[in-house]
């Protein structure tokens, strides 16, 4: 039996995978047995050495990584292809969305974006009582978690204060499901204090939603607006992102003699190689895959010219520490001003390089820089520009150390602040932390409360109790539990230290 067939056989017989998970892994293996899109020798070598990385998206990109449909099209006009009439009631609208989601591809084959749900559903809610709205949305929420069990699937609400947004956040905090992930889009000019407070209380309850800073995102997009998908990718609606490639900055630093060599020679080289990798993949998607012949384009759910290229980076912390060591400095990233400024400088250089490079078949002709939040096998490398797990300073210092990066990452950047559960009795402290972070330029805010079962791993949610069960009996209904278990073991993610200042300030139980 060939190696390939052995791998296929191994997947079909793996007792730890459900049959749908097996089917998915089999299809990935099949795709990856095809030749890779043609790369020049230098790019292929950098990919082989994983200095640059394609996120293991597969050898034959036949669908964009993230699809951000304008779901209002199917609600308002129906779909010829899906034989759907325009929706006229809330039931019909929810039903149309449930159908639509099954036809939205992504890198995981599940939708990573299920819409700005309050905008989509509000027009159908006029004659619906609060109680009915709650019941219908609760069933919808249960359906999403059970049928599309992927924590990368992301719903958005806000910035307006409205019944749908409030009801969704209420249900989400009650059910504490992994899926869908949820972002509340906040805008101090539009959102009420009450709904902002509700979002903060919900974070305390279940570490969701994640809060996005609308005044920073909105101006970068056009009249179609934007949506937040997967783990905090900010992308054009009615389009999405064709690819996500990324540079391992630690590997770049390791290949540099010193900081000067890093900036002058090695980083520019790998920036270029990562562009070449991106171009090869986009070329296959646009010119060979036939994806854009889909009914999604014909019916106007998405538009071929609205797909960006996400240009990712990660391991900023290890990169800066490596360069600091090469310069004989001991200050660590996240804690030392010089180290932090070196990080900011790297982000600025990356941003300018991405802005300066014209790209074909990419929305507005340019890629968008992204602080990429980790695959589950990133041994020893910290996601994006984050501070390594377990060594984070207090939440305020944490935000101050990283805020300057945020201006440079238009397609998404996220930090996860771990907060002690004492915040439960003081939600005003969380509200002020979010406001402070946004005032300093944070584009998005995510928090874990340290006694929640539901926590973010690199950006997606997992239940700690599921990881425990997975370890014990080897199986999970939820795709991301597998990723989460890997990330937890390799990335020391669950070592993430809450900043427990109450240990000093108030007596605590210790049993």
């Amino acid at each position, binding site marked *: 039996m060939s190696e390939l067939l052995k791998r296929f056989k191994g997947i079909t017989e793996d007792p730890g995978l459900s049959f749908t998970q097996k089917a998915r892994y089999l299809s990935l293996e099949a795709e990856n047995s095809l030749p890779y899109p043609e790369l020049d020798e230098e790019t292929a070598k950098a990919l082989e050495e994983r200095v640059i990385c394609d996120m293991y998206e597969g050898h034959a990109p036949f669908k964009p990584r993230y699809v951000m449909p304008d779901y209002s099209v199917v609600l308002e006009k129906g779909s010829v292809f899906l034989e759907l009439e325009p929706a006229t009631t809330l039931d019909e609208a929810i039903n149309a969305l449930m159908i639509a989601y099954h036809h939205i591809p992504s890198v995981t084959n599940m939708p990573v974006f299920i819409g700005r749900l309050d905008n989509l559903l509000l027009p159908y809610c006029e004659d619906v009582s609060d109680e009915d709205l709650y019941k219908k949305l609760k069933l919808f929420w249960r359906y999403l978690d059970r049928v599309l069990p992927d924590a990368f699937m992301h719903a958005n609400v806000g910035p307006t204060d409205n019944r749908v947004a409030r009801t969704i956040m209420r249900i989400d905090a009650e059910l504490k499901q992994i899926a869908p992930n949820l972002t509340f889009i906040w805008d101090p000019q539009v959102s009420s204090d009450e709904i902002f407070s509700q979002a903060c209380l919900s974070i305390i309850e279940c570490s969701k939603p994640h809060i996005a800073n609308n005044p920073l995102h909105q101006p970068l997009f056009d009249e179609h607006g934007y949506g937040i998908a997967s783990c905090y990718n900010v992308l054009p609606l009615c389009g999405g992102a064709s690819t996500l490639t990324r540079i391992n900055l630690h590997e770049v630093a390791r290949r540099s003699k010193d900081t000067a060599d890093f900036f002058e020679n090695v980083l520019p080289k790998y920036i270029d190689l990562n562009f070449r990798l991106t171009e090869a993949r986009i070329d296959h998607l646009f010119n060979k895959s036939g994806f854009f012949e889909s009914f999604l384009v014909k019916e106007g759910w998405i538009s071929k010219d609205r797909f960006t290229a996400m240009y990712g980076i990660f391991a900023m912390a290890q990169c800066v520490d490596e360069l600091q060591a090469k310069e004989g400095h001991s200050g660590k990233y996240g804690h030392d001003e010089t180290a932090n400024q070196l990080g900011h400088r790297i982000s600025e250089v990356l941003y300018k390089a991405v802005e300066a490079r014209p790209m074909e078949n990419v929305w507005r002709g340019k890629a968008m820089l992204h602080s990429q939040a980790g695959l589950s096998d990133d041994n020893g490398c910290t996601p994006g520009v984050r501070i390594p797990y377990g060594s984070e300073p207090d939440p*305020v210092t944490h935000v101050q150390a990283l805020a300057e990066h945020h201006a440079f990452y238009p397609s998404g950047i996220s930090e996860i602040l771990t907060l002690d*559960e004492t915040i439960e009795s003081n939600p005003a402290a969380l*509200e*002020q932390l979010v406001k*402070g972070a946004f005032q300093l330029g944070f584009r998005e805010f995510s928090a874990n409360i340290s006694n929640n079962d539901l926590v973010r791993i690199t950006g997606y949610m997992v239940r700690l109790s599921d990881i425990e069960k997975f370890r014990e009996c080897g199986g999970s209904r939820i795709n991301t539990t597998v990723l989460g278990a890997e990330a937890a073991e390799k990335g020391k993610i669950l070592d993430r230290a809450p900043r427990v200042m109450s*240990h000093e300030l108030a007596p605590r139980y210790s049993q």
Partner: protein
Amino acid sequence: MNLPRATVSKVLKFSCVDGPGNRLVLFLQGCNFACPTCHNPHTMKLCDDCGDCVSECPTGALAIVQGKVLHDPSICDQCDKCLDVCPINANPKVTQYSVDDVLALLYKNKPFLNGITVSGGEATTQLKFIAALFTAIKSDEKLKDLTCFIDSNGYLPEAAWKSVLPVTDGVMLDIKAFDDTLHSTLTTRSNERVLTSAKLLFKADRLTELRYLLIPERTDSSKEINALSEFVQTLDASIPLRLNAFQHHGVKGEALNWPAMKKPDVERIAVKLREAGLKNVMTPSTYL
């Protein structure tokens, strides 16, 4: 004018347990009590420059210069060996802050803050500094919306409170015990001033929270709990009362042999207090 400076053992930029919202907390060095149950015993005394810690410092961050112990934070790795060997429960790592130094800290962290809390040690042992600081905050256009709180053991005399209350938004007050002999055993001081402070602060509408440390076999007796209940009710049954539970974390000396307070006992006492009519009894939010 000789402006007051504070001897500060620690500054926190994020605290959600020292009053409403997020607060910058200044821990002032020095205390007029000497509780064996203290979980920050190194904040009790001011350094007398004996130098015992200098030779113990593994990174060489401590030195004696002209008879004074000096600390170099840039090479200190916070191992706290100096605190362990200090014969008087002091701290060689303190920093002197002027009012302007603290205002600068507040400006820098203002977007994140709802207010400032001075704690300790016993904050009111440096009352002139507190009064100067809070006055400066209240008269600063950019800072005046920050609330100013004091965390205190209540030993401050009545007249002294009156000097700081006009610029203070709230006080969180610890009562260690109601039986005076027990109070003296637990703190080395009588509780008379403490109870007077509580009444005074309540009357002045500045009593934000009362705190009571439950220590098994000492302050958890029915007699003490009844006295606590009665005392609160003579003020107002809805005053926030935070029950703390004695634990060994940070404690030095004889109290390490005392048992730690367990969650079910804390909850039982909380229930009893609520049944007695107290409307705002809080128990520790974390059980690690």
